[in-house]
């Protein structure tokens, strides 16, 4: 007797069936998550993936087209492009992840305070508006101009423009929630401000925070690559997708593979993060999911 798979209640499913149901109901999220997982594996297992030293120069082999020995060809110094692209994923993913986490933490803190403590709200929002008035890339570039080029400074430069959006998001949630009865009853039962914020308000902000966090990560990966491409990001000794493409820009005619592959991986990574974020958003906010269909 064949039973419609969707009709079986969740508890009676086997592991495999649970996965299949998830993929069927959230295809974008599953695809995005899978692709991202592939990228993470590439980044973490870089030394074991048939790579050579990404900075080792070998001028005899310069500008070879993709072929048997060099899957993505070689660059102008004879470095293996495949290895550089794989190692480059480390910087991009690391920067993206760290920026997303740091932005979330800072945004959460400031947003919770701003939403709940009315006296500080106006001031904080004015400052946030001021930061948001500066276009993202310009702010990041200006910050990098003032400091030495390093991965840490790039991370700081990327966190600053993204924080106001996070703060606004969290603050929005808090503004709605602080009028709710449960907040009033918690206060009546003697909860002081820190406990209120952490124990009662914070859990409600997690869902939109995570969704926005994925978009922040995607944005960070793209802007980091852009900064590196302009020469204002990751220092040139460390291969990052933006760096690799910056060095390859004069070789459009003779070595287009040098531009093709880093960009392809960059686009795939950002795409996977965006798809994951979209899927998360659809999953966590049923109103939007129903409307979008």
């Amino acid at each position, binding site marked *: 007797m064949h039973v419609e798979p969707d009709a079986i209640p969740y508890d009676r499913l086997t592991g495999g069936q649970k996965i299949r149901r998830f993929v069927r109901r959230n295809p974008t999220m599953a695809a995005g998550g899978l692709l991202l997982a592939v990228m993470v594996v590439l980044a973490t297992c870089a030394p074991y993936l048939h790579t050579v030293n990404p900075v080792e120069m070998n001028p005899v082999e310069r500008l070879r087209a993709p072929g048997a020995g060099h899957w993505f060809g070689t660059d102008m110094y004879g470095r293996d492009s495949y290895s550089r692209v794989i190692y480059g994923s480390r910087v991009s993913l690391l920067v993206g992840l760290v920026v997303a986490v740091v932005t979330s933490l800072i945004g959460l803190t400031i947003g919770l305070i701003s939403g709940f403590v009315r006296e500080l709200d106006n001031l904080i929002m004015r400052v946030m508006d001021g930061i948001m*008035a*500066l276009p*993202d890339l310009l702010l990041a570039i200006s910050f990098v*101009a*003032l*400091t030495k080029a390093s991965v840490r400074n790039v991370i700081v430069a990327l966190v600053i423009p993204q924080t106001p959006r996070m703060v606004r998001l969290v603050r929005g949630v808090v503004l709605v929630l602080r009028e709710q009865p449960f907040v009033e009853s918690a206060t009546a039962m003697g909860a002081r401000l820190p406990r209120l914020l952490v124990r009662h308000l914070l859990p409600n902000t997690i869902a939109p925070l995570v969704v926005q966090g994925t978009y922040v990560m995607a944005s960070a990966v793209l802007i980091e690559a852009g900064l590196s491409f*302009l020469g204002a990001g990751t220092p040139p000794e460390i291969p990052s997708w933006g760096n690799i493409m910056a060095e390859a820009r004069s070789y459009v005619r003779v070595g*287009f593979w040098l531009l093709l592959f*880093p960009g392809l991986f960059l*686009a795939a990574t950002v795409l996977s993060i965006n798809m994951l974020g979209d899927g998360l958003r659809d999953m966590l906010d049923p109103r939007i999911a129903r409307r979008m269909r």
Partner: protein
Amino acid sequence: MLAYILRRILATLPVMGIVVVFVFLLVRIAPGDPAAIIAGDYATPENIQKIRVGLGLDKPIHVQFGIYVMNLIRGDLGRSLHSRLPVRQLIQQRLEPTVALAVSTLTFAILMAIPLGILAAWKAGSLIDRAVMVFAVAGFSIPVFWLGFLLIYGFSVKLDLLPVQGYVSFRQGFLPFIQHLILPTVTLGLIYMALLARITRASVLEVLQSDYIRTANAKGVRPITVLFVHALKNAAVPVVTTIGVGFALLIGGVVITESVFALPGLGRLTVDAVLQRDYSIIQGVTLIFSFVYALVNLLVDLSYTLFDPRIRY
């Protein structure tokens, strides 16, 4: 109505004030010493001190800020630290390519994205809708410079249809002007278009569920009219908001696109200034871009009353 406009303008002023303070501080907290950078590697301490006095860096910080603001009001943006040319002059020289690129990109993106979004919403669930959604997500994920190089490779290197790089002024010939502008516009425009199409689709989709749309259809109004007159007007507010917010992305994209296509515009000026640590130019350009961004958002806010007369403060 006029009061509303004035009030909106007044609301922008504190934000711009914060931007000015920010830009001023951003450069002053630099770990390096601008005077030492200008003086060069072999300067003596007396030289550095002389330069510092010349730049006015020896005065207390609130005095510096006061001088800075007074200069701003007079329109003096300072001098480049490297070339000693007035920043204002440098900006004026580089303004045309950037404005050309920005205007053409905006036009291209808006003219393409809005009909596309409307079409996707109208035929929701169909193949064309899926295609637009895929394009929207993919387009927004593609790095600008990669797309630029792809287009250069395809159209300039392989097909030899369009010039690879460079900018030709409008005055030197209309056709070369257009030719040099096509690839940069399409590069930047596609990405902006992806963002806009998505929001347009979502907004129009929501509007199409409304009763008045059903009434219009029942009355026998032609679908084109229903879509472009009734639906679009009501869906316009989020779309126009995104145009305003996405303008920041556009500015970032302009900087990168000018680098890829070697357009001698403000973006290139900024990048060069960053690499040379030329703080005056960085300050000036950031201020200009922020002002424009604030202006665009102001226009967006003011346009709300056009689309939705119910919005009145």
